């Protein structure tokens, strides 16, 4: 019985979530380039639509972020910070983009600690004014 449920889950769950993902639209349509001192990074505007606030954006370069499943903790960790409005992860460039609420002072040490708590290393943090 349990094996049957596992088999059904194995087939149904990925299909369902992939269909849901497609219904949300093609992310590539929303991709835009932002420039940091290191060069261009891709920010998914479909996920990264800011409110009307004009807070700062932190672009965090990390090492070890090779897996989507493992990077999920980053989103969960930073989403607990009430000063962060939006989070985006770019696996290809190894960058995490954090959009802060207006008037928030960015604590670089706190970012580094949260990244380390996810098993990754921070190599650079760039702050972009909005």
């Amino acid at each position, binding site marked *: 019985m349990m094996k049957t449920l596992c088999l059904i889950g194995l087939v149904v769950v990925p299909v369902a979530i992939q269909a849901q*993902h497609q219904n949300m639209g093609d992310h590539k349509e929303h991709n835009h380039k932002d420039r940091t001192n290191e060069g261009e990074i891709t920010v998914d505007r479909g996920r990264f639509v800011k409110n009307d606030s004009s807070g700062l954006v932190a672009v965090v370069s990390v090492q070890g972020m090779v897996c989507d499943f493992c990077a999920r903790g980053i989103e969960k960790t930073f989403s607990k910070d009430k000063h962060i409005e939006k989070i985006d992860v770019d696996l290809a460039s190894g960058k995490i983009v954090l959009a802060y609420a207006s008037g928030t002072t960015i604590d670089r040490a706190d970012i580094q600690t949260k990244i380390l708590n996810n098993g990754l290393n921070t190599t650079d943090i760039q702050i972009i004014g909005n």
Partner: protein
Amino acid sequence: MRIFTIVGCLLFASNALSRPISYVGGHTLTVNSNAQTHNIYWHFTPDNKYSIGLDYQKDRISNNAFPSARLTVLLNRKNTTNSQRNLYLKTGVGAQHGSTYFFALAGDWESRRIFAGFSAKQMSGSGYTLFEHSLKLGVAPYLGNYGDMHTWVMIETKKNTLNDQRLTYPVLRLFKGCALAEASYHKKSDWNINLTYRF
């Protein structure tokens, strides 16, 4: 016979778990099913160096249950821009059979395209000691972006001193978001299905 049942449960215990240490404060729930056992394993990561967990296995043949407590320690991690390498020490002790326990050394190296992992596991109980080692290699046929469905096509080979036979079989791993599913098949051991959710 009972000893072999216990040993069998330990041997077939989930080795498929990806990243046995999660993010700090993270929980992981894994359900595993194969021809011999049903298994459910929960672990919590209080620190980025270790995780603690509870495991409950039920033998499908004898219908016996084997709860156990587990600890996984990160011995070494090397992060680079394009890869991560980990070395873990795993241990577990049976709640009902305190003399039944295991130690394992497991490691992996992973980029976005290639995965390689190994495990060497020693199990001990009343009057027996068994050893199992395994090797797993995988390739991602495409590189998905964050949020996409990701796929790994893998091959695993495993040998233990219980039956002294090497089993080599294909493994398919799919994951999206916080959910991961893994399936493998060998004509002798039949299907092994693993579902993992991280929260």
